[in-house]
């Protein structure tokens, strides 16, 4: 493909993907059931992933596509199964403070769109380089090592914490038994 045609095609794809991302995002909150909402959300992520790829951030796009979308969906379904019975497929529309929310959304959109449209950002396009991903890797293990490690620790803490909270059983029987504040009055025989 020629450079010009390349750009037209990618522009076209961007518009399609961008529109898809927005429309699917909107559908998330218009879905009849939580499961459908989760799928719409996944679709939105996929659309954004496409845009990322179009921007030559192939790796990120794929990560987003595969890891995030998948993880999101799985967890959402898990949640729905856990909480909604039967299976969360019932039609639902559970909203509150609807007008306020619309106003807030619109204001957020307008504000950030204004930033995008009228704000001057430095112009320094990324050169289309083949080693983008490799550079990311070098960054991760080089200058931004600490950041990377911090992210790792955060994920570790999340795992420990999530298990500690959510896991129903532990080494000593039901995990949550006794997990309350100390009683206000002493049990008989106990000395203060």
């Amino acid at each position, binding site marked *: 493909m020629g450079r010009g045609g390349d750009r037209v095609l990618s522009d076209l794809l961007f518009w399609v993907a961008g529109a898809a991302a927005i429309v699917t995002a909107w559908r998330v909150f218009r879905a009849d059931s939580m499961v459908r909402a989760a799928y719409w959300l996944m679709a939105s992520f996929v659309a954004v992933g496409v845009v990322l790829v179009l921007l030559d951030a192939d790796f990120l796009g794929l990560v987003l596509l595969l890891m995030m979308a998948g993880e999101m969906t799985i967890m959402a379904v898990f949640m729905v199964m856990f909480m909604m019975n039967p299976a969360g497929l019932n039609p639902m529309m559970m909203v509150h403070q609807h007008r306020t929310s619309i106003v807030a959304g619109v204001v957020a959109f307008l504000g950030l769109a204004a930033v995008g449209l009228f704000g001057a950002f430095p112009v320094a396009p990324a050169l289309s380089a083949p080693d983008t991903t490799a550079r990311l890797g070098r960054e991760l293990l080089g200058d931004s090592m600490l950041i990377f490690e911090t992210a790792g620790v955060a994920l570790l803490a999340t795992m420990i*914490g999530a298990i500690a909270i959510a896991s129903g059983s532990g080494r*000593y029987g039901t995990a949550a038994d006794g997990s309350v504040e100390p009683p206000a009055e002493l049990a008989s025989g106990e000395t203060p």
Partner: protein
Amino acid sequence: MTMPVGDLLPELILLGGAVVVLIFALIAPRHLQAWAAALATLVLAGAMVATITLMSGPERLTFAGTYAVDGVALWGKLIVCATTIGVVALSVEWFASDPRHGEYYALLLLSALGAVLLAGAADLMQLTLAMLLATTGAAVLIAYHRRSRRAGEAAIKFYLLGALTNSALVFGVVLLFGLAGTTTFEGLHSGLARLGSASLLPLVVATGLVLVGLAFELGAVPAHAWLPDVAEGAPAPVAAFVTAVPKTAALIALARLVAVLPEGAAGWRPLVAVLAAVTMTLGNVAALWQDDVRRLLGWSAVSQTGYGLMAVVALGRSSLAVPALLYFLAAYALATVAAFGVVVVLRGQADRARYAGLVAAHPWLALALLVSLLSFVGIPPLAGFAAKLALFGAVIDAGYGWLAALAVANTVVSVFYYVRVLAPVYLDEPLGAPLPRLGSWAVGSVALATAAVVLLGVWANGLLAAAHAARILPG
């Protein structure tokens, strides 16, 4: 590149310690779980020692400019670790019946690690992740009473509000990256300074969004709402932790961040001043009629955030700003441990009415409550007084006399609700049988924190002088 691992010694000790505690908790039998507390204390003490050894070195940025090892950060680490030691001691008997007692300390250490990292963060991404770590840990800790309806509710609210503001923060960070082309503070400093007036809008929006993100961690308006709920609902030792520790780190992070923002363009100084004013006022008036001491302490924590923000307002304009910041944080954290510690010792009983005649049954606890609350007010010679003195001096010096005046008015208002707690303690007759006490670990923690509040106040010079020399990089 080289890896200056030595600069991270305190952090690594905390991380390693957390892992060790976790492993201990997994293998130790139930009756030995409390030993995890001793381990955690050792770890924290080790981290403090490591921090102190770092103090003798030069103040510098490390890890390619993403992390600061400067006076402010190191003092922040000391405050965080010391506070956490106090919280650990408060937790031993409180969580004794919990089957996951041991893991609690691992999470506590990880959350403290998040705070420590946040205090040193000199990069927007580092800041974001450190905050994430601190917040995540805190959320789990708040929910740690898995059978407590109030704890669960508090955790959800904490989490939801945190997630929202975190999203705002992230978007703000992205905008700042777009403006400066980098995320290190050094880069921000030079990058933002170059911008023309057409970039004002993005800069303003980004500043606002980042500020909201930090406001959550600080417990400042408009993201303060979790604080009273958590203070009331969370396990009392955890309440002490989350009202003191993340705030310490976030205030330092905010100071570090605003120091690199261009002075005139974004107008962060008046903005923070307004935030401080609204926060302290709201916290104070909302605390007025609280009958639940824990909740009252939560609201008072909101107002204290407002006072703390005053130091940030004065940053760069007054030589008192940095001493004020650090001293205030130390005084606040210690008094918080003491005040919540009293609640812990009283087995979480927080109804004001039940404190009637406390002085007769537990004179030393009553004294601790008196000292900590009066320190919040700023009565000399307690630590809170020197803190307020430095804060007021700093903002007046910076030309924000009105903020000092407002803080004064707020302080007067605050007397009302603190006295509302103290009056029954000292003046009323006991209602019935005296409240039973929790064990001696908690008592020891309260005693230490109370003594520290007094000593820090009387010998204010030690910390003030050291803080005077502390720098805040890369501002």
